[in-house]
């Protein structure tokens, strides 16, 4: 049933902004960012394409009362089934938890530094039975999460179909429980009498291990939490095989990172995720690379020509903003928000060190202003570990063509600005016309946005940066950078068109994003007094702009067309874009079925 439900592409549902436009802000705003606490309404958005959504909502409203009681029953049932399940395997799990706990402690002692890297690529030692047993624990947690999501059912969306999905999940759980009962707890206890018996035992063991993988897969489609996904892959080989190897697994990751809950920068989970993604992006990425101090540098950095410039810039990179909320390692109670300039000083040497190494390992690039911003944000993401930050920055520079943005002549920057200019023309023709009329070149703003991967844009909340960096690393494409830049322009467009009648007004308005001192409170949200920073003020604005960015379609094929000097196709102008890179049968159905 779930499969039938998901027989429509959630991506398409998300991109067709127009389908949501009549829904009213609240429905359209049922955002992935608020997961998992509102996972039921988010699931609605996820499961239904925009076209069906309106009809479905109408239906749901009519049958709300009955839906609510059914939902409550279903939740109770999920809980009961899972509790039974837990009784059955409690003893095994207790042992397992102890073992995991000691394992984790040991690993922390031995290899604390690289630990987070391993959660996507943990060497496989588990037997299939062990995997299945661990799966029980994960299932329970995630199902509880689901139950929480189900219980705050709202009137929006098609709740009855959600409860269908729930029942389908429940059926799987029940079937799986039957399997667990059928198979002895440990493989060696199977009485091997005949070949047929043995085969039957093997078969049901396989089924036992296969089923939770499938069930869990479905659970994660609904939960949409990148961290839980990574953890499940860590503890369960069957699930890891599923998510790492096939297209559906990658799509599950893609969907979760785009629309689900991502780890925030500054957490170990984020560090592990980003470094894993970076590792996947380059062949020569070596987790055991020598630390910065051991690295034999091709040229002496201390006396290097960039040393002075790096020292100057590292002293003024806005660390307290970029490291906001990040706790100082030695003093857990303090965060960088509260550190004054004097106490921030020792941490600035981290930025300088990483910039030094980058400069000497990238002789063509050397050091260019803007790299310090990228380095500072990479340091945030790697919890101030300079080795990891260097690996991350080096990957961005080498494998993502970030170096080309900074190298003499700024070759790639011109290309990116050209791309963005053409995309803007396609997406916001009025604004593009307005900017051209006022002689405002794309480079003027976009250069700094793109070069620093938006870190330079003071006005953007850090949540927005997290998404862009995560997706850049995951997609290995500049699409997301363009999407965010376009989303910024889309947000600014009505205001620029309404109030900026002269070139300098346009310039001033847009340049506020990078130079404004953030006011303590929003001045006003409407009328002529609204300032560009007001549009990116708080968490709601962050969600709004992220939603906008995810609604804008930029594909590899569009960028390829631009690269080949072809005009963008007409349909794009109407935003009915054919999306080549999402065309590989990548639908949620695929995720759920496999």
């Amino acid at each position: 049933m779930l499969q039938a439900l998901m027989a429509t592409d959630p991506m398409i549902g998300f991109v067709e902004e127009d389908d949501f436009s009549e829904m009213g802000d609240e429905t359209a705003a049922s955002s992935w960012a608020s997961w998992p606490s509102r996972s039921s309404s988010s699931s609605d958005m996820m499961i239904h394409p925009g076209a069906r959504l309106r009809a479905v909502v109408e239906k749901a409203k009519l049958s709300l009362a009955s839906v609510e009681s059914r939902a409550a029953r279903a939740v109770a049932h999920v809980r009961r089934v899972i509790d039974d399940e837990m009784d059955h395997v409690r003893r095994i799990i207790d042992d397992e938890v102890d073992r995991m706990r000691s394992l984790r402690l040991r690993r922390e002692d031995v290899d604390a530094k690289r630990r987070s890297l391993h959660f996507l690529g943990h060497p496989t030692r588990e037997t299939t039975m062990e995997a299945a047993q661990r799966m029980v624990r994960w299932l329970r947690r995630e199902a509880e999460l689901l139950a929480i999501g189900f219980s705050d059912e709202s009137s929006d969306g098609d709740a009855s179909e959600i409860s269908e999905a729930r029942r389908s999940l429940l059926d799987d759980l029940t079937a799986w429980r039957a399997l667990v009962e059928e198979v002895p707890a440990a493989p060696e206890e199977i009485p091997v009498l005949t070949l047929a018996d043995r085969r039957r035992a093997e078969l049901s063991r396989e089924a036992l291990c296969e089923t939770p993988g499938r069930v869990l897969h479905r659970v994660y489609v609904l939960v949409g939490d990148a961290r839980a996904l990574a953890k499940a892959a860590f503890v369960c080989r069957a699930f890891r095989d599923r998510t790492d190897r096939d297209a559906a697994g990658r799509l599950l990751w893609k969907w979760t990172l785009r629309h689900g809950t991502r780890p925030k920068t500054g957490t170990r989970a984020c560090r592990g995720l980003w470094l894993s993604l970076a590792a996947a992006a380059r062949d020569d990425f070596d987790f055991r690379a020598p630390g910065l101090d051991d690295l034999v540098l091709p040229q002496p950095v201390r006396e290097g020509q960039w040393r002075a410039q790096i020292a100057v810039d590292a002293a003024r990179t806005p660390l307290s903003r970029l490291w906001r909320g990040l706790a100082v390692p030695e003093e857990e109670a303090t965060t960088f928000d509260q550190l004054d300039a004097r106490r921030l000083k020792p941490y600035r040497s981290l930025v300088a060190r990483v910039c030094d190494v980058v400069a000497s390992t990238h002789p063509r690039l050397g050091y260019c202003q803007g790299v310090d911003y990228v380095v500072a944000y990479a340091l945030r993401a790697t919890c101030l570990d300079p080795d990891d930050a260097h690996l991350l920055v080096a990957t961005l520079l080498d494998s993502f063509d970030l170096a080309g943005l900074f190298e003499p002549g700024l070759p790639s920057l011109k290309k990116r600005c050209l791309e963005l200019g053409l995309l803007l023309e396609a997406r916001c023709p009025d604004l593009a016309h307005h900017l051209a009329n006022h002689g405002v070149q794309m480079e003027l703003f976009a250069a700094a946005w793109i070069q620093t991967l938006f870190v330079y844009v003071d006005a953007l909340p850090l949540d927005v940066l997290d998404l862009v960096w995560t997706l850049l690393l995951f997609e290995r494409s500049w699409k997301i950078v363009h999407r965010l830049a376009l989303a910024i322009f889309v947000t600014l467009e009505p205001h620029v068109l309404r109030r900026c009648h002269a070139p300098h007004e346009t310039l001033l308005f847009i340049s506020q994003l990078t130079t404004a001192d953030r006011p303590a409170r929003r001045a006003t949200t409407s009328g002529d007094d609204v300032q560009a920073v007001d549009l990116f003020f708080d968490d709601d604005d962050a969600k709004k702009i992220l939603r906008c960015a995810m609604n804008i379609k930029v594909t590899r094929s569009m960028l390829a067309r631009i690269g080949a000097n072809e005009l963008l196709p007409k349909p794009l102008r109407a935003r009915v874009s054919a999306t080549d890179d999402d065309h590989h049968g990548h639908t949620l159905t695929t995720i759920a079925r496999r």
Partner: protein
Amino acid sequence: MTSSSRPFDLQIKLLMIGDSAVGKTSLLLRYANDTFSSTFITTIGIDFKIKTIDLDGKRVKLQIWDTAGQEQFRTITRSYFRGAQGIVLVYDITDRGTFNSVRSWMAQINDHADAQVNRVLIGNKADFETARQVSTEEGQRLADEYGVKFFETSAKNDVNVTECFTTIAREAKARIPTDPNNNRQGQRLNSGRASGSKPGCCK
């Protein structure tokens, strides 16, 4: 922003150049916003500020472009030399290297700016006397050599900041006819809000 909608008689485009970390942004923010912070951040690419002043009975809107000092950004900043009516060249009196670069900046101006552009030389950070590496006389001598006015300023203590901007604005104003029709930019700008209501540019 409110000042930008008031009518003005003349618009002058100024460009601030000079080595990295000499205090271009500090000077500009002192002049335009009357603020100073010791933690100003690096300018990446180009930044932009507006200040409207009364100059000899005329209302003059100064459009000031603040550029990134580092060599790599010249590809971008160079294109803004053209069309600038005044150029503010800044060095740091506590860093001889930035003073030595003045000649190469002057060459840049020759190569890329309009021939008649007005220039002014500024030695910034004059409040930091103990670390001084370039004497006032040296600065003055170099300015005389190029036939431009010279100021030693302190963005931190607000010394000479207004004076230098007013000077360059006055020099440029004397050169540019106030008749908007002779000024390509003024033509569009001087009509201010009125032109904005035309569907042509905002539709």
